[in-house]
């Protein structure tokens, strides 16, 4: 049996009064491009910290390629590369020194050729001997990516790697990460850019208040909420339809529809109440709408895929 790239079983973690994680279970197969989504404070970074051994779970277990992150931490950490969310660096050293040291911490020496290659792929060759302090934010971010790759980990976790990164760099970074995935690395990604998760990830877990509220392939998530969204500008909306509003932008109301036939019902309801439509447009469901709908559900359980989600409130 081949070990899961990442396996998390019933992990819980409390910080003071905050239950950051409340019984999270998930399994990521080798080679997957896995998305971890959720609003701020949902527990994404705590979960990643537990995988990386930066913090410990109150209960449950986590393993990387079958190596428990606490008992077998050396093997677990050798198999894991983490790009942290914060833009951290050591101001004493150059880009190359940073990478050489990081390789050394993993017990690797004489990695010059590999480091050259990382620098090349991340477009940092010309900055190899520049002090970390002198780099722009985007460059520092790329050095962090390089540091996560320097020991060639089979599993790579990226915690919001594109936050605050300009569009062009973001595109390059995605192309690079996608290449890593095609080369066989398992990728776990947290991001706020839902359209990117939609484009990149083949499976997605959504976290809310420390629980997995959805866990499925991207395609299934999209089709579960399939259908359409109808953007309306209307003076009022019949009461029965209020709960269908997935998003409000100024006067625009985005109303979720299960199928095209429902459009008829919506229009009939508007006509019945004598409401005049000022503007209307139809769009396919995207991940953002799925996300918003799942997050709106009171104690959201989107299907049975998420083991931890079916336990209900205590």
């Amino acid at each position, binding site marked *: 049996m081949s070990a899961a790239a990442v396996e998390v079983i019933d992990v819980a973690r409390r910080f003071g009064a905050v239950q950051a994680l409340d019984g999270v279970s998930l399994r990521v197969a*080798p*080679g997957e491009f896995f998305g971890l989504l959720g609003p701020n404070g949902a527990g994404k970074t705590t979960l990643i910290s537990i995988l*990386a*051994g*930066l*913090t*410990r779970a109150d209960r449950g277990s986590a393993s990387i390629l079958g190596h428990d992150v606490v008992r077998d*931490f*050396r*093997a677990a*950490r*050798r*198999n*894991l590369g*983490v790009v*942290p969310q*914060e833009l*951290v*660096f*050591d*101001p*004493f*050293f150059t880009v190359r*020194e940073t990478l050489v*040291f*990081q390789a*050394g*911490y*993993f*017990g*690797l*020496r*004489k*990695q*010059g*050729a*590999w*480091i*050259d*290659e990382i620098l090349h*792929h991340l477009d940092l060759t010309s900055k190899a001997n520049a002090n970390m302090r002198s780099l722009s934010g985007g460059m520092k971010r790329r050095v962090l990516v390089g*540091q996560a790759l320097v*020991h*060639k*980990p*089979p599993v790579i976790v990226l915690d919001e790697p594109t936050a605050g990164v300009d569009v062009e760099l973001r595109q390059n970074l995605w192309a690079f990460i996608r*290449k*890593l995935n*095609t*080369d*066989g*690395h*398992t990728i776990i990604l947290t991001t706020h850019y839902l359209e990117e998760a939609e484009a990149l990830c083949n499976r997605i877990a959504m976290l809310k208040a420390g629980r997995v509220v959805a866990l499925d392939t991207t395609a299934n998530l999209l089709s579960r909420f399939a259908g359409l969204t109808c953007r309306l500008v209307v003076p009022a909306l019949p009461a029965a339809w209020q709960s269908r509003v997935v998003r409000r932008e100024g006067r625009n109301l985005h109303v979720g529809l299960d199928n095209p036939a429902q459009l008829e019902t919506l229009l009939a309801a508007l006509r019945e109440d004598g409401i005049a439509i000022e503007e209307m447009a139809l769009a396919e469901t995207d991940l953002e709408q799925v996300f918003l709908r799942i997050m709106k559900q009171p104690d959201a359980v989107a299907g049975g895929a998420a083991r931890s989600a079916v336990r209900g409130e205590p």
Partner: protein
Amino acid sequence: MIAAGPPQGDRPLGGAARSAVRGEQFSYGWVTLFYKEILRFWKVSFQTIAAPVLSALLYLLIFSHVLEGRLTMYDGRVNYTSFLVPGLVMMATLQNSFANSSSSLIQSKMSGNLIFVLLPPLSALDLFAAYVLGAMVRGLVVGAGVFVVTVAFNPGLLSMPHPLWAVGFALLGSAILSILGLLAGLMAEKFDQVSAFQNFVIMPLTFLSGVFYSIHSLPPFWQALSHFNPFFYMIDGFRFGFFGISDVAPAWSFAVVAAAAATLSALTLKLLANGWKLRP
């Protein structure tokens, strides 16, 4: 375990899907951190080495100018300037050992780059060895610098009767302060907590340990109290190496200092293994 093979740096990206890397050597992780710790202070050596040597030299010039001729130590067997030199050497060694591990750790904590050593497979012992040895190197380099400069004023000091005792006490004293620095760095959440530890614990203990005086010149109460200060044994034992005279038998001092080093090591290793303040 994974065999140490040639590095595979020329490989194309990836292909790493299954197993971790070859070419890794287990003992090399902490050696890298140790080396990084040395390079960190070496890159700012004007501040970390030259400055403390200069201040020790100023102490020597001022105190010997004021007190030489008025004061002799050990019943007139040692002149004051000679007496002062080993105290200053030891003080510089101790303070700089403490400064190195504490400031390295708190800086890494505050800037967040401590994550770089927390993500790799470094054990509690790896972290301990690297930070403590790195800090000892700084302390001992500064101590040696102070020794070289001050000996220029007192060439007679080179004829040490018991140099091995001096070396032993320098090593142990520097180890203890490096460990204390590590503890302070672990404990602190802000820079001012480290400097409070330095100013309210380390400085008084050093100054009241007999750097500038023999405790025999103190009133009985303070003399007795000095025996509870572990720093006193470090400096007294160190001085024995220079003059063959001390306030306390050197073997007893050595036992106290070694016990302190062992206790602090055990405590710190335990805290590191528990992830105390590092892996909350």
